[in-house]
């Protein structure tokens, strides 16, 4: 079983992100359970979306406290709140880059990738919705999902310009992490 926790503000598309990621696992023949948890029921309020996935149907209905992977859609949430709380010792975090953001200290085997997802989204989609770029980055950083499946999930969800924009965003997110990993080597 793998557990993914997404941190965002209501209205930033975290549920779509969780739904897309769930779809990708579903296309792989796995059993994902994607679900949101809202704080205050208004736009801009901090909220979480989660994906729990297994090779058999997921029965556990609680929120996720010890994620394998964390996706931070809005890095302003990291001010005064630990978005990495409970992240597993070998966990991976994908963070949407934000000017002036401070990354928490990682454990030795944890990895974090800071991705300019909103910049990518502005170029590809025309709006600062970095979700699909972050999912592309997730694919590269974790090796959990295939880009072909991600493209397929995006095509099921979006049409026309939005479809192509999101595919381009996902690809650029993926390449950003791949190139960064190469540089490190």
């Amino acid at each position: 079983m793998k557990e993914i926790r997404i941190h965002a503000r209501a209205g930033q598309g975290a549920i779509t992100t969780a739904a897309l990621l769930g779809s990708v696992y579903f296309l792989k023949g796995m059993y994902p359970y994607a679900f949101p948890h809202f704080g205050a029921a208004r736009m801009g309020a901090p909220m979480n979306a989660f994906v729990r996935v297994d090779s058999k149907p997921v029965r556990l209905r609680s929120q996720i406290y010890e994620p394998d992977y964390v996706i931070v859609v809005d890095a302003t949430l990291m001010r005064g709140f630990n978005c990495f709380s409970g992240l597993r010792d070998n966990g991976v975090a994908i963070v949407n880059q934000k000017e002036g953001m401070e990354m928490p200290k990682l454990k030795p085997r944890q990895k974090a990738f800071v991705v300019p997802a909103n910049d990518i989204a502005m170029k590809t989609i025309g709006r600062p919705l970095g979700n699909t770029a972050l999912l592309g980055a997730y694919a590269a950083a974790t090796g959990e999902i295939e880009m072909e499946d991600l493209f397929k999930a995006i095509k099921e969800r979006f049409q026309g310009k939005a479809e192509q924009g999101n595919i381009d965003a996902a690809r650029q997110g993926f390449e950003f992490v791949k190139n960064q990993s190469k540089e490190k080597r």
Partner: protein
Amino acid sequence: MKEFLEGSRAIAEIVKRCRPGVISAYPITPQTHIVEDLAQFVADGALKCEFVNVESEHSAASVVLGGVAAGVRSYTATSSQGLFYMMEVLFNIAGMRLPLVLTCANRAISAPINIWNDQQDSISLRDSGWVQMYAEDIQEASDFHMLAYKLTEDASIMLPVMVCMDGFILTHGIETVDMPRQEEVDKFLPPYRPLYKLDTADPVSMGILADPDYYMETRFAIQETMKKVLEKIPVLTQDFSKAFGRAYNGLVEGYRIDDAEKVIVALGSVCGTIKEVVDELRSKGKKVGLLKITTFRPFPAQKVQEALKDIPKVAVLDRALSLGSYAPVAAEVKAAFFGKKKGPKVISSFIAGLGGRDITKDSIREVFSLLTAKEVSCEFIDLKPELLKEKYE
């Protein structure tokens, strides 16, 4: 076909396939997505149905009462305060013996206002004459709607059915659901043929005055029919299994209870979490199990007795209260064993998950560890003691 669907979407899809002719609803979190999707289907012409927009839940319930009284299969959905606003109409629907299906997206009750999940809304309507079924997952929630229409429209039943699904956890959760084809649903659920209906060509009156000479027999009749529901559900679930290949007991479901020493009794989505913990504890040699109650009204007391008669210690986990008395499900389980020779030595009662407080695996482990020889009543799990110390100044 297996699809990856949001719970609300799955309900809208299955309701569409049940072909209601009248839908009326008023949006309330977390029910909203269900009726938004249905309204879209109607607007797109994908569902031929009269969708009546109303200004309140009281009117929504009244409209579907009218729809089904006129002989048309009808549907509505609501949550929390919306269900309470429907309350007097819901008693009328049952009293008038009108076959209707309502989805309750379970949510806590005000005050304080809280949009999150518990089961206080539907549990509070337990005496309304509605059958109540509680879903563990989205597949069950979807399938129960087909069963519900089949049950409610059975000429020997004619009592409305409430399908209860935990708000957000199931309504906003997305998971793999096997959706039947329209032809399969049509075969299982033929068009509604009313025994009686409002018809200008053949006028009847419904819901009229019954004075003390007549009223009591109408209540007796519902009480008797509730017993028939307990016989009917297992028959329908067998038919369902033949048609769709998914087997449900429909009343109660035991999970690893055969040699269990401790069993938790619960309703709804928390049963999944309990099963996870049961498997974990079993792998450590602990003899624990779960009894899931699917149908809460009518209460399947005999099935509960059969399932738990040899279990030494039973914990009942309620996500609702009857303030000032025993917890609602706990009271039923205890009553089922009063005066019986065989039965649990201990029936302890626990409260968890009110107003969306997360029920984790630790919460369930806590229930098992607090289930000892010392019986407890309404023991709250995951309370925050620091909040109880706050004073009004």
